[in-house]
């Protein structure tokens, strides 16, 4: 067997997840924000596969497949919204849309 442990796999997933979070928090361009969310989701999927592998169960992979489905659905709507936003505001700046506040 290999010598890398579940913890290493999870640490990798954590790091990627948090990188996604940094992207989400610091980017202004809505496309980048969306990419960051994808990174986070992918990291969560990675964590599931790692965990499934730890228990030698297919469940982790099944979950990954569902995450994939969800990511696809979400991205399609998100991109439609981005197009709509671009049409309205003529920009991809996420901060352009802050009419509602307070």
């Amino acid at each position: 067997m290999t010598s890398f442990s579940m913890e290493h796999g999870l640490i990798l997933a954590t790091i990627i997840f948090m990188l996604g979070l940094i992207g989400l928090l610091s980017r202004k361009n809505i496309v980048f924000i969306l990419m960051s969310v994808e990174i986070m989701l992918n990291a969560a999927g990675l964590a599931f596969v790692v965990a499934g592998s730890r228990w030698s169960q297919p469940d982790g992979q099944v979950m990954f497949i569902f995450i994939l489905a969800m990511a696809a659905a979400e991205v399609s709507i998100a991109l439609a919204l981005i197009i709509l936003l671009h049409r309205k505001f003529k920009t991809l700046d996420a901060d352009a849309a802050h009419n509602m506040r307070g």
Partner: protein
Amino acid sequence: MTTEGLFSLLPLFLLSGFAVILMLLIAIYRDHNLTFWFTLAGFTASFASLFFIQAVLPRQIVPILIIDNYALLYWGMIILASSAVAVLSYNYLKEHEEQKEEYYILLMTATLGACTMSSASHFISFFLGLEILSVSLYTMISYLRDRLESVEAGLKYLVLAAASSAFLLFGMALVYASTGTMEFARISESLSANGVNALTLSGFAMMVIAVGFKLALAPFHMWTPDVYQGAPAPVTAFVATVSKAGMFGLWLRFFVMINGYRYGSLLILFTVISIASMFTGNFLALMQNNVKRILAYSSIAHLGYLFVAFLAGGKLAIEATTFYLVAYIITSLGTFGIVTVLSGKMRDAEDIEDYRGLYWRRPLVATVFTAMLMSLAGIPLTAGFIGKFYLVSAAVNSWLWLPVIILVINSAISVYYYLRIIVVMYRRIDEVTPAVETTTGTLATVGPVMQPSISLGGGLVLAVLTLALIWVGVFPGNIIQFIKDMVSSLSSAAMPMHTAQKIMLFR
């Protein structure tokens, strides 16, 4: 899966089946009326089937769903609330969007998602239910594509919900990694056998983020006012009620099944969240001039109240929170229903100035709104009072004095902004300067923003809700008994909080 097992899924099958039928129907013949009636038929059929399947309950659909009386109660709540939203939407959409029919498919799938959540017994159904709900909501919130706010709200909700889902998934993965199972019951077994470790707890904490996000608890609440304001008014009603009922039903079941009351740190986390929500919601609502936002903030506070009783643990907590949720759903549907029926073509009736002198123009609507606000404020003889009373007695029974005191303080604060709306409604119009500046930046004369007349369906929904509100407030006995019976399938699993824990928590 046995035949009875399949049979017990009938309500869900009906919901999803009708979603598909609606889709085909629209493809063949696009007509708003027809779609609406089919939607209503779908909800009715699904609701009716609840009575039939009761005979074969409780039933575990291996391994991801558990269908028991508790789930049935939440399904009933969710389907009824969704039907109300559908009726409210009909007239609203008639004036707004040129393509109205898809909305009903999404309403159907969102309802399906919420129902799935409240009967989930596995991370997969947890996640899928949540996502069906969320994905449907993304579109519903930004359904009015011509409105800037609508699109903005949809985008905000989408990004934040997706991020919080990522947190949820990550937390689930951690729990799975440390326990080796995704089934609630077996997680509980594993925790009892092997004890809890930091990995599991941080997994739970990550899941709390998504739960807090959906329930709009502080500090995950920030999307709430924007989305409530931007979304079409009936969708706001949906977000405020169905989405929260589904999530809360799920989380309550999850927490009870894994016996989360064992872990003091989780309880501390919820205490902090609950107190923060109460204060945040109420302070934010105080000076707000947008009625939708006021209601959004008040919903944050109300979920904070709800979690005070949630903390109490044991049978009483399940009953109290469920009852409160029923009262909250009735009231929220009522308040947003009023916003819906009053909303005009170009914008929703959301500015507080729109409500000035409402009593003198629409005495009935104003009276209903007053009743709803009184219920939110917890004035006796309304559902809200009994709900709050139940919450407090549950919490006091578990010696949760600190949260209870904060709840009482916050109730007092909240009366201010509810009264503010009421006072504005009863002002004479002639006391008003003709042109007032509104939050939407237009110089509006008061009144004409409003719908010229209340639609039949909307009026009916409001009437039913008002009756329910007063019925629950005046004759709560039967409903309490009903809820007690229905949740007994879950509450028998609930263990009261350990005394030592109480003392540790709130010394």
